[in-house]
Every structure is written in C-alpha cells, then in structure tokens.
C-alpha cells in the first residue's frame, strides 16, 4: 500500500534554523502504523530525517508527534485510522516544546514540569518489616496515573501551555495526583496546598478536555486535575481566585438559576482585593463600549426554583 506523507522538517544547523515541508511516498503493509511509514522513510528514502522511536508497542513514550494536527504516539496510530481513503498524512513535531530537529523536540520542558511536583513518594516512616499494608483498591486506583509513560502528548496539545508556559501542565499534575492519592505518602496536605497556591498550579487549567482527548494511555489528566481541586478544597485550601470562582459560580446558579457574570468576576478577584479589582476595570470598560457588559444586577432564571430543588436534592444525597 502506498502511503503519502507530508513532514515538517527543521534543520537547526542552517543559520537560525530552517523550516520546510517535505513530501514522501512509501510502500508499506496495509496494517502498518504511521511509525512504520516514518521508519521506512528514514531507512530508505531520506536518512537525514530525525525522529525518536524505540519500543514500537506504545510503552516507551518516545514517538509523540502531531498527526493531522493532533498529538499522538505514532507507533499506535495505524495508517488506515488517519488516512482511511489514502489521504496524505501530515506529520509535525509536538507543540509547546522546543524543536531540536525535524520531529525531535527538547525533553526539558516536560521533565522540568515533572520535577516541580516532587515526583516521588514521601512516606512518614517505613513499616518495621515488609511492605506497606494498603487495600488493593487504593493501589489499583493509582494505576490510572501510573499508566502515564511521559510521552508529552498532553503537554503538546495543552491549550493553557500555549499561552502560559508557567503552567505545571497536565502530565505533571496527573503525576502529582498519584502522590496525593497514594496511601503511603505523608505529604498530601503540603502537596495540595502548594498545587493550590502555586502560580501555574491546579487552577490554571481551563478544562478544555484536549489532554483527555489526546492521551494515548487513558490517564485523563484533566480529570485528575479536577480531583486535585476537590481534594484541595476539602483539605481547607479556600484562599485562591480559583476557589472563589468555583464558589461564586455555585452560589450564583443556586440562587438565580443562572450565572451572575459580574458577581463571578468580582468574587474571583476577591471583594477586598483592590488591586485585582482595578485590573478588571479596563476589561469592564471595553466590554461596556462593545455592549457586552453583563447586567450589574442579576436576572433570575424563570426556572430558578427548579434549579434550587436540584441543588437541594444533590446536596441532600451528599450528606
């Protein structure tokens, strides 16, 4: 089967670096993966093409790349999945990370993020002999995160990292979740408080779902981040704009059956935080000029009583 590829190349040795697109056609088995096709190019068509790959079985995490715009492990992406009718396949290096050459990105961004969360179990004290006793359920629960192979695919396509390179990122936060949840770890509280307070921490995720969509190992980083938020609140971390935002959202919908956007902005900033509130002023002015300013006083939804009933029901069940 002939596969057509269009590959984004980058040669760093050319002064300042040169980027260009290059097209290749290779003849491979019909069940081949995109990695098989790339290896075929590298071995027989153009030996200067640089890419990382090792295990070919989606366990080493080397071969993250963008295929037709989305980051994937190319070793577990079959050609027929991305080009069912023989379309040209577009391959680019992963995003949000510095390109070293062709499809090879620098690993520094990824592993610097990982190192920020103190990625190792910190037990209080070891049992005198033998293993820690813990239920199988509590351990199996952690496998969701342990399945992470650090391929960087979620970091590549994270929409927050695209605009804020200080965000700890989906992979590192999913790993942080694993230590927060690990019954052997004694630093749950301090981990949560750091993740809660830190600039670039758990509240910087915008819940766009992209990491859940692209993760090749079912880690669902965003879900782990949401669980971290819940845990952080439960353990008393209520001093962040993120928490105030959540709380305001919750109360506003409960009370009015709809979101009071003005109040949300003020609450998130903190009613006593004058600096932050002043920061909001220009945004408010612009919105007003464009006629986009939400009403100062909230309108109630016609159905707000039913919304409140729903709240009461859910809250009752939680108790």
């Amino acid at each position, binding site marked *: 089967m002939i596969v057509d590829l269009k590959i984004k190349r980058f040669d760093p040795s050319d002064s300042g670096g040169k980027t260009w697109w290059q097209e290749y056609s290779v003849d491979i088995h019909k069940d081949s993966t995109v990695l098989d096709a790339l*290896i075929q190019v590298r071995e027989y068509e153009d030996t200067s093409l640089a890419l990382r790959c090792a295990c070919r079985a989606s366990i080493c995490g*080397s071969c993250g790349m963008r295929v037709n715009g989305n980051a994937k492990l190319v070793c577990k992406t079959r050609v027929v999945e991305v080009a069912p009718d023989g379309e040209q396949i577009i391959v680019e290096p992963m995003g949000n990370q510095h390109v070293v050459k062709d499809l090879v990105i620098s690993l520094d961004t990824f592993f610097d993020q990982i190192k920020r969360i103190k990625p190792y*179990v910190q037990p209080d004290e070891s049992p005198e002999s033998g293993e820690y006793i813990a239920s199988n359920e509590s351990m199996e629960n952690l*496998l969701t995160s342990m399945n992470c192979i650090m391929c960087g695919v979620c970091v590549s396509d994270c929409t927050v990292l695209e605009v804020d390179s200080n965000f700890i990122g989906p992979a590192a936060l999913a790993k942080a979740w694993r230590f927060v949840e690990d019954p052997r770890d004694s630093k749950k509280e301090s981990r949560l408080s750091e993740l809660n307070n830190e600039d670039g921490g758990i509240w910087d995720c915008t819940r766009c779902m992209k990491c859940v969509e692209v993760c090749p190992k079912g880690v669902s980083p965003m879900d782990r981040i949401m669980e971290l938020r819940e845990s952080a609140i439960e353990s008393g971390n209520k001093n962040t704009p993120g928490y105030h935002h959540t709380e305001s959202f919750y109360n506003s919908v409960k009370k009015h059956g709809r979101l009071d956007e003005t109040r949300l902005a003020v609450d998130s900033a903190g009613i006593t935080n004058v600096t932050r509130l002043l920061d909001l002023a220009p945004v408010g002015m612009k919105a007003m000029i464009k006629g986009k300013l939400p009403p100062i006083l909230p309108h109630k939804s016609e159905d707000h009583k039913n919304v409140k009933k729903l709240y009461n029901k859910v809250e009752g069940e939680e108790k």
Partner: protein
Amino acid sequence: MYEHDVLIIGGGLAGLRAGIEVTRHGVDVAVISKVHPVRSHSNAAQGGINAPLTDRGDEWEGHAYDTIKGSDFLADQDAVEIMSSEAGDAVIELERMGVIFSRGEDGRLGTRAFGGQKVARTFFVGAITGSALLHVLYEQSIKLGLGVYEEWFVTKLIMEDGVCRGVVAYDIKSGKLHTIKAKAVIMASGGSGRVFEPSTNALICTGDGLALAYRAGAPLMDMEMIQYHPTTLARTGILLSEAARGEGAYLLNSKGERFMEKYAPDYMELASRDVVSRSEQIEIDEGRGIDGNVHLDLRHLGRDYIEQRLGYLEEVSQEFLGISMAEEPVPVRPGMHYIMGGIKTDYNGATIVPGLYAAGECANVSVHGANRLGANSLLDTVVFGRRSAIHALEYIKSVESASKSEVDLKSEQVRLQSILDRPKGESIAKVREDMAVGMTKGIGVWRDQSSMEGALENLNNVKTRVPNVSVEDKGKVFNTNLLSALELEFMVDNAEAIVHGALMRKESRGAHFRTDMPERDDENWLKHTLVYKDDNSNTGVRTETSPVKITQWEPVKRVY
C-alpha cells in the same frame, strides 16, 4: 573532559538501581544513556518480578531450583543462590520506593503464576510491571539528584594499562565527542535483540554495551542462548506477556487442542519458555498451525478479569491486531525476545577487565543459563545492579584518578569523521536486515551445524559490507543516521559472538536446540562458552570454555 568516580552506561532498571546505590553512599556518579532513562527497554517487561518471600511461607531454595532447572543446569548456582535469597528484600524495597504492586485481600502484595514455577511468586503491576518499576526508580533518581547524560552515546571504553578508565561519548544533541573519565564503569546497557529479525526488542536494543566490553577484552559468555518467547504477535513480533498464560490462557492448535498436554503434561502452558516455543514450532511445522501461528485463548477468563489484570495486553491486541482477547483467540508464535548470554561477570558484577562491571541483560552472571524464567529478568536487574554498585564502590577506594589523556577522544573523532566522509554506499538498514534475517534463520528455535554455518557465512558477507555503508546526513544535531552506522558495527560484534558460541556447543541445552544433536551432554558440555575478540586470529575470535558452578543441585533430566 568530564570526570566521575563511577560512570554507569545505561539508564534502565539495572543502571538506575546501580546509580541509586552509589548516590546513597555519597559518591560522585553519573548515568549516561543514549535515550532518556524512562525510554529504556526495561519498560517492555510486562508480567512481573519473581521473589520468594520467606515471611509468607515461600522458600528461596524453591525459586533457586526452579531457576536452575529452567536454565537447563547451565546457570552458576552460587549466583542463583544470591539472586534468590536477595529477591525478597529487593521487591520490598521497590514497594517502599513507591511501586504500586497489585495486592491481595489482606492488603499485602499479591502474586500471579508464571512459567517454569509451581509456586505463584511473581509480583506485578497489571501488565506494565517493567514500566512501573522503571518510572519509580526514575522518581528516586530525581529525589536523590542522580545526574544523567541524557541522549549521549558511548562510542568507546577508555583503557589504560588494561584497566577501564572511562568512556568516549557522543552528545547526540550537539554532535560533539567528549571524554568522560571514571574510576569504575558499570555497563548496564541492555540486550541486543535487533541482531535478529523479527524481535520483540525495541529499536534501541543494539547490543552496544556488549560490543564495547568485547572490544575492551571482556569475553562474551553463552551467547548462543537466545530466548524465543512463545507469544509474540503475528507480523509485527510485538510481545504478549507470559502473564496471559500465568492468569490461565490456553495455547491451541488448528484443531482447537491444548497441545501442551503432549509436551509438558504437568506444567502445560506454564512450562519454561524454550519448551513452549519448541512445542508451538512443532505444531506449526507439522501443519497444525494457523497461518504460521498458534492461538492464545483468553476468552474463558472474561472481559472484566482481562481488563483488570491484563489491561495492557488487551490494548496491544486491539491496537495492533484489531482483536479483543475477550472475544477471539489471538494468533501468536515464537519470537526472539532475550539474550541469556552477555558480558561474563562474577556474582558481584565484576568482569575480567579491572574497573569494568556489568549488570542486567548485557551481563551474564550467570543466573539464566540456557533459558531464563519469565519474571527473572527484572529481578536480575535490581539485584545485580545494586551488587555491581556496591562492589564498584569497594574497588574505587584503591584507585587513583584517571590520567588527563585525551588520546582516545582524538582517535574517535578521526574514526567518526571517516565514517561521515565515506562516499555514497550501501544502506545501513539493508545491511542490518540482511544480517538479522540470516541470524534468525541460522540461530532460531531450531538449529543445526549447517544452519549455523549458514549464519556465519551470511555474517562474514555482511562484515565485508559494513565498511561501505554510508552516512548521508552530515549534520551535527541529532544525526541518527551516524548513530545507526555505529550501532550496526556493535550489532555485528554481537552476532559474531552469538554465531561462534553456537558453533562451539555440540549438544542441545535450553534455548540452544540442535536437531542434529538433540540430547544434552553433561559429560562434555556442562560448561560455559566464552568468545573473546581477537584480531590476530583468522576468525576474528578466540574461544574458550569455563566450568559451571554447581553448589547443591546436581543436573537431572529436565521434565515439565
């Protein structure tokens, strides 16, 4: 020039475990690896890690005997005794470092059954045990501040007066060569599966460390002992863990028969790997295969159980064959998987070259002998990774700092440049493929004098082509073309030792099954084969044998 007290080549389980040990002693150490540590091939170990935990009624002697029987009595029994008796502590230590082992009802570590053993003593993390261990050791290396030369490729060991004093290494990201001096070097660079085609091994398993040590004068031992794993996927050769059979999967022929009844009535699908692979091959050769495969049937285990205990296998089966194991049997066949042979070491990891230690798949301690039991490779890495570090620490106490000579750096610069300067010649990939296909053909599940001589002839032909392969990429940064030329040379050295080892052994033992000499011959061949590099000999090698260490288990006929 860089300098460390201890330098470890390889960032997989053996290398990281050694590095952690040295760091704990407060001694200056660095790991150098051609890939980032978490990309290492230790990841690919799926099923688990064996350990006889004595506090729950298991006995280390039982594990030791199963290992020795599995090895077809070629393992050195003193080394196996050490591995088995240290196994329990090693697994508990991994748990305390943070490994999420599966647990039983009582909250203590749970086990699953594995091949060649009647006792279920394999500790596991789903079907991602190797990956889970590797990531946790990497976590510990971050905690301890273990330094890693990430994506650096060692091209040569520096030898001064017969003593190993460091390496010359190529920084893949900058394309520069550097000298890294060390008082002791620990080789933990993994296996050489790419010498064969197909293989379950990662593309990075090119036997670099074995070749480096071999070139520095260390003998490679029992290299003919190549493990063919019984359950690799059709076409791609991707591994499906023995854990499937450990959890109760059947092997079926085209008639739907559990054919292992004929070959291993007592152990069935859980006989040792060489036995199961040969049995499958007989079924296939005698016409009871399914398109060159047999079937691995898990359907009776049920979807929930499969997803819970063997999730990664289901993922692999779905991704690469489009088959759900819960609904259909999976076509599998024997595939090259592991090399029992390696750099000869004692049970402290010391090679015969002063200053050079080895651990993990590149080493041959020897604990696997002629056939490795499943889930013993992970154990081997952590036990002997640690031991090699401890003994290297002892060794360096009486060693002075290395010289400041950069003579090897200069000669390596010239050598690499001459490879880059070659005129356009043969394709590296084609030469490798020709070598690897020839190796599988000649040194396969079955072999005989003529097939092995065929492999040698093929290899000799390949050797004449290697100096003519060309590197078209002249760039400095991430030049994988140049690396593959260097890896090809390393693989050829591995192939040479494998073929000569195989031709030496005039018997059948474990994985080395000769159809022209089908019996084991303890009288003449209860010994190790050693291959040394020797440029003065016609064959390029010098061969020797050395005795097998027997402590308490006399060889008996091996029946499963």
